[in-house]
């Protein structure tokens, strides 16, 4: 049984998919391949918990007007020995742009020299957003050796019609880079290179030519693929893992885990979880009903249930739609204080009061609408992890309050398919679209965010029944539109947000959206998660993040540390 026992030299940790199932052509990602690419290729940029974006591999990301300048270090190379240059990344950027040059928001990408790229946006974009454009968990890595992708880029450049371009793209997407090719041809660029693999493990060896290689004494790394095995937790409990790069040891697990495993880095994560209200339901379309539900729910048991399933986090104090840790940066302290405060614990009386505003009553523990009919909702959830727990707790709470609840639980693949059919009244989905502590990742107009729908469509409401145009009070924190009100277009605002031309505009749009969210409660956010990484702190020295030149307040601190050679075997 593998484990650190058999090759005790290696640093063992668990993550991602089976190496034999994924392949490394970023344009044809499948099988959740990025989970492995995280260990083989460097990121370009990463956001941190304060909402700032930092260069990861590049030495700097500077902005000037609509231009973003990316400078690459000169001492990096691919495992093949070829120099790693700006052209490698430029090739990727250009392929992306040329997929559909008209639709792209990029004007051009210029390869200034071997180590510099100038990237110019078509419109005015705030500098934060220009940088943020480079971050993405899935695609924000330098995975494209120029000699492999050059051919496709040239063909794209030669293509004149969209049809020709699509043809090239099809070819590109059919191209595959399986792990044996990656290893043999040296197509990775991380400090640890792939030397062996099996169905569910990948073995890495320190790549001595990597500029950071000297910093660490960990020569061998073994990655157990989390998705290909069933016994990760058994390995953890049996002390067979040295690190988990993303995830904390929760309270519930603490007793089961050996003492040498400790959370060595904790962060306020970007992720939140929410319950979506489908406005297509006649009751949920009514604001007082949504507010009543919010009053009726006690967020603590929901969070507790999630915690039981291994999540770490706490309920948000305010329904703003964005994470409280970035309130200050985008909303300002004083402004936030004016927002409506909904109870976190259950407030039955408040809930009934809200219901009455809609003309509803609660009799003998049953909520009746204005016509005296019982109010019933369908709830969709999946059977995996904490999602089912939440489903159970939410529906039980609402049921005991007096709503009729009909919960359907489906398997997780089915869940995401069913989710997008919008055939339920409430469901469950996480609330954030990108690994970025930025309003755009929360107010994204899709089911990760506050989905409204396509504002350019002909209808008046989006898929979830939310109108494209609606009224909110002008005054922040007002509970009704009885006073002054303004008409806003949330869907449009969410489309505008990622291309806001200035930090000021970002803030403005964000405030409007937050106010709307707070007033209308299109969704209910119920947990702000914490994350981080745990490891065998006896056997290894992990960075705390306070060291010089060490930046760990970002997503996946474990991987970040490993990819920067910040982990050492304890002496």
């Amino acid at each position, binding site marked *: 049984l593998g484990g650190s026992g058999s090759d005790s030299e290696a640093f063992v940790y668990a993550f991602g998919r089976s190496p034999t199932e994924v392949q490394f052509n970023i344009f044809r990602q499948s099988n959740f391949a990025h989970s492995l690419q995280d260990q083989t290729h460097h990121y370009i940029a990463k956001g941190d918990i304060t909402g700032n974006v930092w260069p990861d591999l590049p030495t700097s990301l500077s902005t000037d007007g609509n231009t973003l300048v990316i400078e690459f270090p000169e001492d990096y190379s691919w495992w093949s020995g070829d120099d790693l240059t700006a052209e490698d990344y430029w090739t990727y950027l250009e392929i992306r742009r040329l997929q559909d040059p008209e639709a792209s928001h990029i004007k051009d990408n210029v390869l200034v020299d071997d180590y510099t790229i100038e990237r110019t946006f078509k419109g005015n974009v705030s500098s934060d957003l220009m940088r943020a454009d480079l971050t993405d968990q899935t695609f924000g890595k330098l995975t494209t050796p120029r000699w492999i992708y050059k051919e496709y880029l040239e063909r794209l450049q030669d293509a004149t019609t969209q049809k020709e371009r699509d043809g090239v793209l099809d070819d590109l997407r059919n191209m595959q880079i399986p792990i044996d090719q990656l290893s043999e041809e040296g197509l990775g660029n991380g400090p640890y290179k792939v030397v062996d693999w099996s169905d569910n493990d990948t073995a890495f060896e320190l790549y001595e030519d990597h500029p950071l290689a000297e910093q660490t004494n960990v020569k061998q790394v073994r990655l157990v693929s989390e998705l290909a095995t069933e016994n990760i*937790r058994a390995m953890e409990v049996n002390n067979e893992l040295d690190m988990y790069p993303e995830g904390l040891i929760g309270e519930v697990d603490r007793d089961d885990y050996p003492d040498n495993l400790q959370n060595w880095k904790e962060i306020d994560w970007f992720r939140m979880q929410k319950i979506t209200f489908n406005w297509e339901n006649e009751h949920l379309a009514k604001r007082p009903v949504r507010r009543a539900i919010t009053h009726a729910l006690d967020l603590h048991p929901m969070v507790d249930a999630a915690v039981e399933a291994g999540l770490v986090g706490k309920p948000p104090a305010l329904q703003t739609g964005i994470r409280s840790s970035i309130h200050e940066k985008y909303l300002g302290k004083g402004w936030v204080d004016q927002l409506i405060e909904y109870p976190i614990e259950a407030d039955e009386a408040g809930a009934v009061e809200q219901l009455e505003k809609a003309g509803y009553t609660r009799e003998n523990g049953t909520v009746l609408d204005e016509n005296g009919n019982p109010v019933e909702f369908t709830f969709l959830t999946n*059977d*995996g992890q904490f999602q089912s727990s939440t489903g159970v707790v939410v529906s039980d709470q609402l049921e005991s309050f007096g709503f009729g609840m009909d919960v359907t639980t489906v398997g997780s693949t089915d869940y995401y398919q069913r989710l997008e059919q919008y055939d339920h009244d409430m469901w469950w989905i996480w609330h954030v679209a990108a690994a970025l502590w930025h309003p755009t990742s929360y107010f994204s107009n899709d089911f990760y965010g506050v989905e409204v729908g396509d504002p350019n469509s002909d209808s008046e409401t989006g898929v979830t029944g939310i109108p494209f145009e609606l009224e909110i009070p002008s005054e922040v924190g007002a509970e009704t539109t009885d006073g002054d009100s303004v008409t806003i277009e949330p869907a449009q605002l969410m489309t505008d947000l990622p291309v806001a031309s200035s930090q000021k505009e970002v803030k403005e749009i964000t405030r409007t959206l937050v106010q709307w969210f707070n007033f209308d409660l299109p969704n209910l956010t119920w947990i702000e998660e914490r994350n981080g990484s745990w490891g065998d702190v006896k056997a290894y020295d992990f960075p705390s993040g306070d060291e010089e030149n060490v930046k760990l307040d970002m997503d996946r601190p474990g991987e970040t540390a490993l990819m920067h050679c910040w982990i050492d075997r304890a002496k």
Partner: protein
Amino acid sequence: MTETDELDFEELFDDDTEREPPSRSARLKRTLDLTVLAPLRIALHDWRAVVAGTILLLYGLMGTVGVWLATKPSSGDYPKLQGPFQELAYPLGTDLYGRSILDQIIYATPDMFRMIFAGAVVAVGVAAVVGLLSGFMRGTAIDAVLMMLADIIITIPGLPLIIVITAIFQPTNPYVVGVFLGVDMWPGLARTVRSQVLSIREESYVEASQIMGLPTPSILRRDVAGQLMPFILVNASLTSRRVIFESVSLYFLGILPFTTYNWGVLMNLAYQENALTRSELLPWLVFPMITIILMSFAFVLLSQAMDAIFNVRLQARHAETIDEEEVTG
């Protein structure tokens, strides 16, 4: 019928007419004794039937009275993750959300019965009809088509087929789930029924009934179905076990959507929450398992006992209205 025949009959029957016809109630008593009480008496003599009956009765009670007695499990009812055998309110402990595990098991029972019922009825019913039909139409096109259909379904591996079917229809209604599960099970049975019918058809009493001009439905019912009955019931019992197995496996794999409790769902949830390495979650996994095993154990036992219960030889021995002494042959 000619005149003379009539006469002979009358003569013969006039011989002694003072015979007292049995009263209606005596007849009723006899029928009751033979069709209900005798099998029951055998069942009571057969430990398998007794055990199976007791277990199933318990489950039956669980699914009826139990549901009525138990509180509908709801999160936060009790402290979470309590161990079993500590409190009367949750004898088997509680789950992650503080729901009584016993209550959940109890609440899952009616649906399980519905599923079993639908599955067994479909599998055994279709099998019986198809088997009878093609057995009686041996050699005709109907027979060929039915058997071809059965063969085709036999060769498609069952579970994958069901997975696909359920993936398409995403049934949540227990009856529908039962029906889907039954769909995969009828062909094998139908084949066996057919071969049984073929051999029963060779029995001379069937031929005799035909020659006596008894109507075909009556022959089917009395001569064929009567013989098939034990076989059909044994298989209904075994099919029930399979329905339990397969439905639970589908819920366990998370393929079937579910709206309420099911033992497989409990297992699924517990398993997903790493019950195998979190000892405090084990009851959540283990008790549904035991429930499943016990119920299928009852069905397997029942199927074994069924042979005895429907054995007329034993029935005769246990019937009170037949005196036993002069039993020869």
